């Protein structure tokens, strides 16, 4: 049969998470179809049609899907399920919200946040904040899977699949979008950035995070944070990197004033190069950092900026 990938998007742009999920889906069960559920989302469907390996794009363009609320998404995906032996979504807050409902309705387990497809029915997934990797086999039934996108390369954009309109399913109206407060930023998205500068409790205030933001702008980097920095209100919740926040794997992760709790490491230890700057030479983060600098961050940040300026940044 085939697999169905549920597209991540905001009705105008296809999220990169989709291209990565397509790569995972190709390894589970080809051909791959992509479902774009949204409203006024034709441009998203066009972008999905270009992903290499995609055989067909389904577009459900109707108001209940504007915000991808879990209840109408469940009804739509369940209605399409008979044609597929695997359904995959990226492990974004959207995918995590609707996909378990689909699994329950189909009476199959969900395999959450896979990091590797070992064979079409066997997968690796991190457990215990990434301190262990479980290899699990789903012998019977449809495979319902969320994908940790940092673990898969994006499918190329050289395809040209047909786009098919599908009807919306009935919406119970039990859930209604009221509003949202999004962090607006010109900086790259955390999960897509090549460089991340991240701050912890050591930053002491939201005001001080501006220092990190300036540094990030020089590097074209995204800004991340530890839970402690979010809990203290220095930065919004969507900055949180870790077991229960975002999982990132940039080329370069620079941590300022972050101690290195396992819950934080779970979200960034697959970064290519990790730099830790901390005034405590025994900070656990130094045990996994490629480059360690024992220093006061309030001195280190301006020093780094000055060194970068010398390099023409």
């Amino acid at each position, binding site marked *: 049969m085939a697999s169905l990938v549920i597209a991540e998007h905001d009705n105008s742009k296809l999220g990169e998470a989709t291209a990565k999920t397509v790569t995972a889906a190709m390894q589970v069960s080809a051909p791959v179809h992509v479902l774009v559920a949204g409203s006024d989302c034709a441009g998203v469907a066009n972008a999905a049609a270009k992903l290499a390996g995609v055989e067909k794009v389904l577009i459900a363009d109707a108001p209940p899907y504007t915000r991808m609320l879990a209840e109408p998404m469940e009804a739509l995906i369940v209605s399409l399920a008979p044609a597929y032996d695997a359904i995959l979504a990226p492990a974004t807050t959207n995918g995590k919200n609707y996909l378990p409902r689909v699994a329950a309705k189909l009476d199959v387990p969900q395999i959450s946040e896979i990091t590797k497809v070992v064979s079409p029915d066997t997968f690796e997934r991190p*457990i215990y904040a990434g*301190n262990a990797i*479980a290899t699990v086999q789903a012998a019977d039934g449809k495979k319902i899977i969320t994908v940790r996108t940092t673990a898969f390369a994006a499918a190329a954009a050289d395809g040209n699949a047909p786009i098919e309109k599908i009807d919306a399913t009935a919406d119970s109206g039990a859930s209604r979008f009221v509003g949202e407060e999004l962090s607006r930023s010109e900086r790259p998205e955390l999960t897509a950035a090549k460089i991340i500068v991240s701050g912890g409790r050591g930053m002491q205030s939201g005001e001080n995070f501006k220092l990190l933001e300036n540094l990030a702008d020089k590097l074209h980097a995204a800004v991340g944070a530890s*839970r402690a920095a979010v809990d203290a209100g220095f930065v*919004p919740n969507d900055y949180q990197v870790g077991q229960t926040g975002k999982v990132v794997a940039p080329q370069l992760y620079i941590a300022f004033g972050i101690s290195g709790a*396992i819950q934080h490491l779970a979200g960034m230890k697959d970064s290519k190069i990790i730099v830790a700057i901390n005034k405590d030479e025994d900070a656990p983060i130094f045990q996994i*950092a490629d480059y360690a600098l024992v220093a006061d961050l309030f001195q280190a940040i301006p020093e780094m900026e000055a060194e970068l300026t010398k390099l023409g*940044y």
Partner: protein
Amino acid sequence: MKVIVPVKRVIDFNVKVRVKADGSGVDLANVKMSMNPFDEIAVEEAVRLKEKGKATEVVAVSIGPQQAAETIRTALALGADRGIHVKADGEVEPLAVAKILKGICEAEEPGLVIMGKQAIDDDSNQTGQMLAALLAWPQGTFAHKVEIGDGQAQIEREIDGGLQTVEIKLPAVITTDLRLNEPRYASLPNIMKAKKKNIDQKTPADYGIDITPRLKVLKVTEPAKRQAGAKLKTMAELVGKLREAGAL
């Protein structure tokens, strides 16, 4: 309105997890176990609803081994009124847990189920959503703020881009995120009082649920280890190294 709060007994978040040498799982012998931190937040939220007069009764439920009763006791000490312990040994998968919880909801008819968004052992983040689907209820996941109204609730949710508010009809399932509240500590008098509160003993069979795992765990291994790298003396040296490594 009755509120049901499922609580799971998991390895304490401060414990360094060790993978067993034979690859069969992680070593849970003699390690500290606690209530899943997200479930503590769920208990706290439910108890606050009761204190505000929005909830009439808070029922803590745990599905797990004999010792899961201690986790229910902890919830009772934090202010839950009574408990239901569904005794089950070994791994119970999220889908089976959701099915048992569905049975409990059908018997108890709560107006709300509040539970953790994820358990810090299997990191699945799915049980609440599954329960909502099985009951055909709406859900408010990753809750940052909960406002209970008349027959509905407004849930502010932590999403990838920031915060989103949805209005859901009750009954519903809410799953907690880290910023929903700061759980209290149980006071000694409340710990004493909790000992007298009732815990019903049940089994999965009471709800007609087969808990045989559907996924086969072939092995559990240690992740690739990262080595500590170079300790550098100055920022100039650090930036130089990053330049050499091609990171800048």
